[in-house]
């Protein structure tokens, strides 16, 4: 057996993050007096450089590496890039909040980097094992992050709940993977696909495994009926962690779903599409109805996130039916939705952070009252975010909904589109309510906005991007399409 050293170059970004995570750990141990700002600076530096590396290694050529465990394709590159930016923004938004509460310990940034690494491994996995390892790396870091405010009962409860349920979900996923392995005898995703296509695999075992896979994916995406952890963890975790939790990991989970279902198991598309249909319908209905009655903004956004992930699944479940081209269109709709959602949720939680200050958490919806009086600029940005989430043009959220609904209708599931539309009408109400509070009501407190300038600036960029991408969604849409067309998805 001859052993060839793998080509490390395609994985440069991952390796860099891994090295830097260790660097953060070591340097902050020794430089104790500046550890907090050093860790933050190093983390942002790492993410920035990672973004650059990812940009410069973007390529439409698909490279299989590390004995087929790793795939370097445009899809992975774009997703890594978005995840990277999402993490940068999330760390930036959360910094002042954490510092005011003395939570900005170096471990926070260490965990964030490790989580980043986990997500990158997931995104570029071409093999069941790295997929699972990446997922665990991300999840374990997130469990710890959720419980980061360790003296706060809510935070520790959130961490505990997340851990127990998350471990269960990981178990389900692993069990599903073992079934797939048992049925196909392959761990590499393309080999699994081949075995399924070749009809040599035991169909019963395969389907049994598929159910577990879908359950595991659904949990990680936080969609009904595996959503129970979402509202509690979102509410209990410190807001900066909620911010991280609601943005980047959703993109990683999207990659997980894409790799597992679309790359490895396109042969079972009919089956998993039906499962996802039920999951999506349930999430859209439940998420929107439950969000109606929330008083806590984090909880409301949690339920709205459940429904958004349901919408994203609409794109994922509409592929495969017709031509390869229509599959790409459908998946790229889902990808566009996931990116749009990350952008919106970052801005929404960024707003919560903006209104919070030392000793005050803007956790209640009421805290948005009269924002237009206090700061017309941020009120209008929040208005962008809310109408975008409600799917009203000219904002990116409209085109996200547009793209997935188009895919659903092209796939012939008119009832699903009708249901989604009815539910988004119900959803519009709770977004409108926030706009109502900001514009029609008088403020509860007249404290000036005291957030740090970099948060204000970044939030402005973020909000304007939601409007600008809504006016010109073409570039991002075509990027998603090119990425999927140049990926290892055969369609």
């Amino acid at each position, binding site marked *: 057996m001859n052993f060839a050293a793998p080509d490390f170059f395609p994985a440069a970004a991952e390796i860099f993050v891994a090295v830097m995570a260790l660097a953060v750990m070591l340097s902050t141990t020794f430089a104790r007096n500046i550890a907090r700002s050093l860790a933050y600076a190093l983390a942002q530096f790492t993410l920035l450089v990672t973004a650059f590396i990812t940009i410069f290694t973007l390529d439409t050529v698909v490279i299989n590496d590390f004995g087929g465990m790793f795939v370097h394709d445009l899809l992975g590159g774009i997703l890594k890039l978005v995840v990277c930016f999402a993490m940068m923004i999330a760390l930036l938004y959360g910094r002042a909040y954490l510092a005011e509460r003395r939570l900005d310990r170096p471990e926070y940034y260490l965990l964030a980097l490790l989580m980043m690494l986990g997500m990158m491994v997931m995104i570029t996995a071409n093999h069941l094992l790295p997929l699972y390892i990446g997922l665990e790396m991300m999840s374990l870091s997130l469990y710890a992050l959720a419980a980061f405010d360790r003296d706060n009962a809510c935070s520790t409860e959130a961490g505990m709940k997340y851990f127990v349920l998350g471990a269960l979900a990981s178990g389900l996923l692993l069990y599903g993977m073992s079934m797939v392995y048992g049925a196909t005898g392959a761990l590499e995703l393309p080999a699994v696909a081949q075995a399924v296509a070749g009809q040599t695999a035991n169909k019963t075992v395969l389907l049994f495994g598929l159910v577990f896979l879908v359950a595991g994916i659904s949990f990680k995406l936080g969609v009904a009926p595996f959503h129970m952890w979402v509202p509690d963890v979102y509410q209990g975790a410190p807001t900066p962690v909620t911010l991280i939790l609601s943005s980047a990991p959703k993109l990683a989970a999207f990659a997980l779903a894409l790799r597992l279902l679309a790359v490895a198991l396109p042969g079972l598309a009919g089956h998993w599409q039906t499962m996802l249909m039920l999951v999506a319908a349930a999430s859209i209905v439940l998420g929107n109805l439950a969000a109606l009655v929330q008083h806590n903004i984090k909880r409301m956004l949690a339920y709205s996130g459940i429904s958004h992930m349901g919408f994203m699944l609409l794109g994922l479940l509409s592929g495969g039916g017709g031509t390869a081209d229509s599959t790409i269109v459908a998946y790229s709709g889902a990808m566009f939705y996931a990116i749009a959602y990350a952008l919106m949720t970052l801005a929404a939680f960024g707003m919560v952070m903006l209104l919070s200050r030392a000793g005050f958490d803007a956790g209640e919806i009421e805290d948005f009252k009269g924002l237009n009086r206090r700061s017309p600029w941020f009120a209008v940005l929040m208005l962008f975010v809310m109408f975008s989430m409600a799917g009203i043009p000219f904002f990116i959220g409209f085109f996200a909904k*547009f793209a997935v*609904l*188009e895919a659903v209708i092209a796939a012939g599931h008119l009832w699903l589109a009708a249901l989604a539309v009815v539910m988004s*009408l119900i959803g*519009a109400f709770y977004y409108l309510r926030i*706009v109502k509070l900001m514009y029609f009501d008088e403020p509860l407190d007249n404290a000036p906005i005291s957030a740090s300038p970099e948060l204000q600036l970044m939030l402005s960029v973020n909000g304007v991007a939601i409007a600008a991408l809504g006016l010109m969604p073409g570039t991002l849409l*075509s990027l998603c399409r090119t990425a999927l067309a140049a990926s290892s998805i055969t369609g």
Partner: protein
Amino acid sequence: MTDIPFLSLAIWIPILGGLLVLASGPDRNAWMARMVALLTAIFGLAVSLPLYFRFDTATAAMQFVELRSWIIEFNINYHLGVDGLSVWFVLLNSFITLLVVIAGWQVIQSRVAQYMAAFLIMSGLMNGIFAALDGVLFYVFFEASLIPLYLVIGVWGGPGRVHAAIKFFLFTLAGSLPMLLALLYLYSVTGSFEILDWHRAALSMTEQSLIFFAFLAAFGVKVPMWPVHTWLPDAHVEAPTGGSVVLAAIALKLGAYGFVRFSLPVAPDAAMAYAPLVIALSLIAVVYIGFVALVQADMKKLVAYSSISHMGFVTLGFFMLNPLGVEGALIQMISHGFVSAAMFLCIGVLYERMHSRQIADYGGVVNTMPKFAAFFMLFAMANCGLPATSGFVGEFTVILGAVQYNFWIGLLAATTLILGAAYTLWMYKRVVFGAVANEQVAQLADIGAREFFFLAVLAACVLAMGVYPFPFTEVMHTSVTELLRHVYTGKLL
């Protein structure tokens, strides 16, 4: 023809001007916000005028066309153009916006910049709706125009504004979401979002029926037709004067316009088949809502119900599917734009002075405000369709069309002349004539120069249109003929 993109200018000048107004900041710079808003509105009207003067009345084809690719991935184009059906509404909208800016000059004292900006942005978006020739572009403008109106009602409205604003938003959204599905379905069938491609696409009866009802939901709510009209009285009562004016004069026209741009040409066979249904709903609006208007104690509510009744006339005219009906309906739309705007402005004039809209609080206004009473008289007469006012032309033509279609429908439709006169003139009598009702009325000051100006301009429009409607019919005629030819040809698979 010319290369100046008049339609783009008519859309984007108000929007950019609105953003500029917003930039003027807090209320201590209110004068600047007002000046910028006024200039923008004048400029917006100025770039709309060539649309009429350079309009070629001999063709039913789209004019002033602009075509650029917007979102290539979904084959969505930035495609603008107007024909005889839509050109007048762009003009009407730009014109009404100018009046609204003038009318809100002194009345609005808080958050002036945001108020003016909301109206300017809304004006640009609504011009976009009338000019869009791409289904998605239309939908995007259609939905986006809800946001400023929602804020206008909610921020500057009366005591029940929150309820009214949310109801308005959700009703309209509920209607337009089925339309989004219809648009996406048409795309999946034709591979294009071009409205004109959809006009040509052959569709089976089932498809046409579903599409027709999806459009009916969107436009029926917007018009509004009975029984989904309940949001309108609420919105009108709570909205500030400017909001009511734009709502009545322009926003309601969007729904009616949708029928001639989408429902009739895209699903002509379904439109023929379901015409009796729409006619029945329209007649209910005309007659039943007319009676409802009769018993209102609140002036704004009364005019709101009269709007519903008049818009019932418009949908009635469209679904007669004969030239008289359709042209009459289009004229009625423009006329109602002038008359309802004038009625709400008149009520606004009274409300600013008395802070009451209850008819019972007034009486004998003519004694203290003679000039105002004269204008109000003219508009009240136009509202009940007196000959030589614009109201007469539209209503009379629609009734002619209705009699041509079916005598009894014509007869029922004609009751509006009696009902309209009854509720309008009875209100006018109670508010304006009689002895001076109370101390406050006795102290009323007559209209000033600013108010005189906008009422006089509207009065001139109402009279001019009533005496010489030719410029309006001339523009529409070719397009209406072509539309009806298209509808009668049908396009079943």
